[in-house]
C-alpha cells in the first residue's frame, strides 16, 4: 500500500504583514516630507543622481516601498514600480516586524544578517544615515537610544519639521 503524503500550504501572517505595509507607507511619506525640510537629509541626497530609486522589501516579493529622487527631493512611489538602483531586503516578515516595531535597530538588523543590500554600498551607507535621521523624527529619544548607535542631534527648530511630518507628511503625503 502506498503511503499518502499531502501537500502543505502554509498560512498567512496577516497582522504582521499589515504592520509592515503600514510602516512602509509611513516611511515613504516621511522620506518625502523630511527631504524637503531637513538640511542634513538634503545634503546626503545631493550626491545621489536624479532619478535614483531605492526600494525596501521583504523576501520574496512583498510588501515593499519604492522612493525616487525627483527634482532634488525624495518622492514616495508606492509599493509597485519594478526594479531600483538600490534594494534593501528583509529576509523574512519577522525580521521586518522586529525592526519596524523598534524591537531591533537597523544597525543590529544588519549585524544579525536579517537584512541584505543589493546595489552600490556607498549609496546604502548614505541611505542608512538618512534613515537614522528619519527615525530620530519618528520615534522618541528613549527608543532612538535603544535602536541607534548614537541618535542624531535634535535642535529645537527640528521640532517644527517633526510636527510637519506627523501632521501633514504622513497623513496627506505632503
Amino acid at each position, binding site marked *: 500500500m502506498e503511503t499518502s503524503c499531502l501537500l502543505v500550504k502554509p498560512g498567512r501572517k496577516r497582522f504582521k504583514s499589515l504592520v509592515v505595509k503600514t510602516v512602509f507607507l509611513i516611511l515613504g511619506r516621511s522620506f518625502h516630507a523630511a527631504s524637503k525640510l531637513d538640511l542634513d537629509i538634503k545634503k546626503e541626497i545631493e550626491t545621489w543622481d536624479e532619478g535614483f530609486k531605492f526600494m525596501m522589501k521583504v523576501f520574496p516579493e512583498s510588501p515593499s516601498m519604492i522612493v525616487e529622487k525627483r527634482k532634488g527631493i525624495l518622492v514616495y512611489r508606492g509599493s509597485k514600480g519594478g526594479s531600483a538602483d538600490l534594494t534593501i531586503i528583509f529576509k523574512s516578515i519577522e525580521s521586518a516586524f522586529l525592526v519596524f516595531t523598534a524591537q531591533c535597530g537597523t*544597525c543590529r538588523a544588519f549585524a544579525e544578517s536579517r537584512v541584505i543590500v*543589493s546595489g552600490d554600498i556607498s549609496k546604502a*551607507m548614505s541611505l542608512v544615515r538618512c534613515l537614522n535621521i528619519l527615525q530620530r523624527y519618528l520615534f522618541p529619544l528613549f527608543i532612538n537610544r535603544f535602536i541607534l548607535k548614537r541618535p542624531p542631534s535634535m535642535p529645537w527648530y527640528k521640532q517644527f519639521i517633526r510636527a510637519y511630518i506627523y501632521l501633514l507628511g504622513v497623513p496627506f503625503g505632503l
Partner: protein
Amino acid sequence: MLPSYYEFYNPVKIISGEKALDNLPYELNRLQVTRPLIITDKGVTDAGLVKTVIRAFAESGIILGGVYDDVPSDSSVTVVNDIAGVFRRNECDGLIAVGGGSPIDTAKAVNILVSEEGDNLFQFAGHDVLRRPLKPLVVIPTTAGTGSEVTYVAVIADPSRKVKMSFTSAYLYPRLAVLDPRMTLSIPPGITAATGMDALSHAMEAVTCLQKNPISDALAMASIDLIGKNLLKVVAHGRDEEARLAMSNAACLAGAAFSNSMVGLVHSLGHAAGGVAGVPHGVAMSIFLPYVFDYNMEKTAPDLARLLLPFGGPEEYANTPPAHRARRTIELIRALRQSLYDLCQLPRTLKEAEVSRDKLEAIARTAINDGSLTFNPVEVTYDDALLLLREAYD
C-alpha cells in the same frame, strides 16, 4: 554573551603543513579536476614558487592547463577577460590561484565568467547575484594576511569607469586552501610585517565588531594567539618554517572569522586611505588599529580586555587588573607596532606612510561611505573620522 541571532558559513577544506602542496593532485582528483589553470603574478613566478607548485604534480598524471602569471597588483576586468579566454581555449576545468590578494580575487572573478559562460563581468557584480555553484577553485596563498583563501569576496577594478566592483556570493568560496610553509618563506620582512598586521586587524575587529558570534570569536582568538607568538619571529627570522606556517594558519583563521563577523572602522579608514592615498592595506591596518580601539573603547572595553589573554599571554593577563586589561591590550598593540618599526620600518603614522596632510578630508569622506562602518560598534561621522585621521597623522 550570545547574539540573539547569528549566521556562520565556511565550506572551504583546508590542508596545512609540511608538504601539503604535494597532496594537491589527490585533492584535484577528488574535485574531478583534470586540467587546472594556474593564475598568479610575476613576483610569485620570479620567487620560484610556481615551479614548486608544478613539481607537486610530478607523477600525478594531471596535465596543467597553463600558467597565467601576468596578474597586476590591482587586478582589472581586462585581465579577467583575458584569463577567461585562456581557460576556454585550453579547455581547463578548474582554477588554482597562487599568490596574495590580487591573484586570488582575479581567479574568483575568472571563475564567475567561465562558470556562468558569460563575457560581461559587470552583470554579476554585487551581493548574491550568482545563482549556481562555480567550477572548483583551489587557493595557495603566498602571503599570510588577507585570508582570501577562505572568504567569499572578490574586488576587481574597471579602469574605464574608474571604479572597483565588488562581488560577494557564497559560491565564490574556494573549494580548497593549501597552507604550505614553503610558499611564504621568501616574503621580505616589510611585507611580512604589514600582512601580519592585516591578519591581526581581521582577528581583532572580528572580536570587537557588531556581527561577532561564538564561532567567529573562537577562530579569531586562536588567530590572535598565533600572531602574538609568531609575528615578530617571522619578521626577524623569515626562514623559520614553523613560525611561517603558524602565521599562515593565523591569517586563515582570521579570514574565516571576519568573513562571518565582518570588520569595522579600522577597515573603513584603511580602504579609504588605500583608495585616496595609496597606503598599502596592511600598513594602513597597522597605523589605525590602536586609534580606532581607543575610539571604540566605550562600547568594546570587555572584548578588548578578553583579547589580552591570547595577545599578551596568560601571565600578562593574570598580572593586569581586570579594569586595566582593555587599555593594556591597546598598549601591547602600540608596542608591537614599535617593534615592527625597529625591525623593518613599518610605518606607525600616516606621515611615515608618506600621506600628505591635505588628503585627510578626502579619506574621511570616503571612509564614512565604506560598508564596513555598518559593523563598527560606535557611530562615526565625517568629523569623527577626520579627528581620528589627524590623530593618526603624526
